[in-house]
């Protein structure tokens, strides 16, 4: 639309709709602003409360919820950092999730690509074979999985956990990306092939970049899912406390808080676990949202 026609459209609209519409936007606006503000408050309030609680004493935590901490006590943060090894766990988690997400995306997109765009005997069967995995409840496999990982000699190692994370992320990743690859135009790949590019090169240099939007959104999905995974590491990293990931750490402090009554310590640890994720999210939120958005367009 040209600026001219736009202006005329708007003029036309305002002149036509003015009398009938005027009062409604006001009310609606007010209502929607109120709703947005309330929801934002619902999200921020518990987070803020937790943050404040980490400076409170036990007595204050179990007293009036709406009271501010009497003094600024930093010792809970010290305890959470020192005794609960939150820093160590965050680092472990970052390493595990980075590697496993990369692996998931690499293998997942490879499988999804050939399943979506090549016709060969059994392709549908393999596709359903992968997607059936979405319906399995993870902990049903916990016991047998322990022995599988033990047999391949990777029990109590980050490598083992990474491979397992990749395997369990594949169903959804393949499911999602296969649908995505199917929507990409056939012509580009064809042109590349006519130019003499190999299948592998076509995939990595042409199709993957084209699928960038879909890849970003599913990467985020996997990072979140693996970052928050609790059951698998509980069994697969049970032995050495220094290998734990953050969710194990939080669960551990949460239980310990029950036995040792260190609630401020628990809340401090929770803050430490949340803050880096929030910071990363806020820094990257534009990319994350546009990635998710671009994925949604397809």
């Amino acid at each position: 639309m040209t600026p001219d026609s736009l202006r005329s459209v708007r003029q036309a609209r305002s002149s036509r709709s003015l009398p009938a519409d005027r009062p409604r936007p006001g009310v609606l606006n007010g209502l929607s602003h109120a709703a947005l503000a309330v929801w934002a408050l619902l999200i921020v309030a518990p987070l803020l409360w937790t943050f404040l609680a980490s400076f409170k004493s036990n007595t204050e935590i179990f007293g009036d919820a709406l009271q501010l901490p009497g003094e600024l006590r930093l010792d809970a943060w010290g305890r959470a950092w020192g005794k609960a090894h939150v820093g160590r766990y965050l680092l472990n988690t970052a390493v595990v999730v980075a590697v496993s997400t990369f692996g998931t995306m690499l293998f997942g997109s490879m499988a999804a690509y050939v399943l979506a765009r090549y016709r060969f005997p059994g392709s549908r069967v393999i596709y359903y074979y992968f997607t059936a995995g979405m319906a399995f409840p993870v902990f049903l496999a916990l016991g047998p999985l322990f022995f599988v990982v033990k047999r391949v000699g990777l029990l109590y190692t980050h490598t083992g956990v990474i491979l397992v994370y990749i395997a369990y992320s594949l169903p959804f990743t393949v499911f999602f990306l296969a649908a995505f690859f199917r929507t990409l135009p056939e012509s580009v790949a064809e042109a590349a092939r006519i130019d003499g590019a190999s299948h592998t090169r076509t995939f990595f240099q042409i199709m993957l970049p084209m699928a960038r939007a879909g890849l970003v959104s599913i990467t985020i999905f996997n990072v979140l899912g693996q970052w928050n995974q609790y059951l698998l590491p509980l069994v697969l990293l049970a032995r050495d406390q220094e290998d734990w990931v953050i969710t194990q750490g939080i669960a551990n402090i949460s239980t310990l808080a029950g036995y040792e009554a260190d609630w401020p310590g628990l809340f401090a640890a929770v803050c430490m676990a949340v803050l880096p994720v929030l910071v990363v999210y806020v820094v990257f939120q534009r990319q994350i949202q546009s990635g998710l958005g671009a994925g949604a367009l397809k």
Partner: protein
Amino acid sequence: MERWRTYGFVAGFLAVPIVLYTVFVISPYVQAFQISLTDWNGIAARPAYVGLDNFGRLLGDEVFWRALRNHGILLLVLPIATIVIALFFAFVLNLGGGARGPGMAGVRGSGFYRVVFFFPQVLAVAVVGVLFKAVYRPDESGVINGALIRLGMEPVGWLIEPDLALWSIIAVMVWQAVGFYVVLFSAGMAAIPKDYFEAAALDGAGRVRLFFSITLPLLRDTVQVGWVYLGIAAFDGFALIQVLAGEKGEPDGATTVLPIEIWKNAFSYSKVGYASAMGVALFFLTVTFAVLTLRTTRRERIDL
């Protein structure tokens, strides 16, 4: 020749994913299916096969049916509530500001809201659990009840009244999920060509009508995808219930779901065979749900 090269490429690309998936996902589940036919207690070296006994017992287990009923509630309420709220916010954030500049715009501050709404999505369940235990505490030290008492109202036993507990937990699930779907739907709305709205606005359509006559129909596909995701989430819901309500789906098992029962039987009562039978049942339920949903939406594939 070309054909074989293609097959070689396909095999090369599929080999690693299939091996990983078969070894770490399929093989444990196959074993779990076998175990569901035994009376294994988790320790015995040679469990006895009992055929379909475990499944027979399942049908007569009142707790099993209670868990199913809760899955039913979750399956209805979680997607509906989440989608309605998310659609509303997505609409307000993207189009609620009326015509500003060229085309429609969101209300003021929509950038801020979009960021904040997504926060819960990045929190681990363990963290959300700790958070909401504090929020729902039954006396003045709870965040909600503290406020209620200030306002001169009676405190509410959010997690201790059997009629209320499941709803309190669903509220947390919705709280956590809405942000993701706001972003998802926002993207869908951004893709709707602006002149649709212009034209409709020209005809004097208010925002409510804009939403129902343009936005919603064009978002149908995205909403359906959301429904499937949320449905699968409803079949899980294990971790949050365990953290918030307790390992046994307290109070009185009112908040129990199949995963809770599986966990309890396998790890507390050493009835691994029976627990596996429940897992198999859960598997078929999830598959049935997914297939039904996809069928009724009459689409060969899902694309987000």
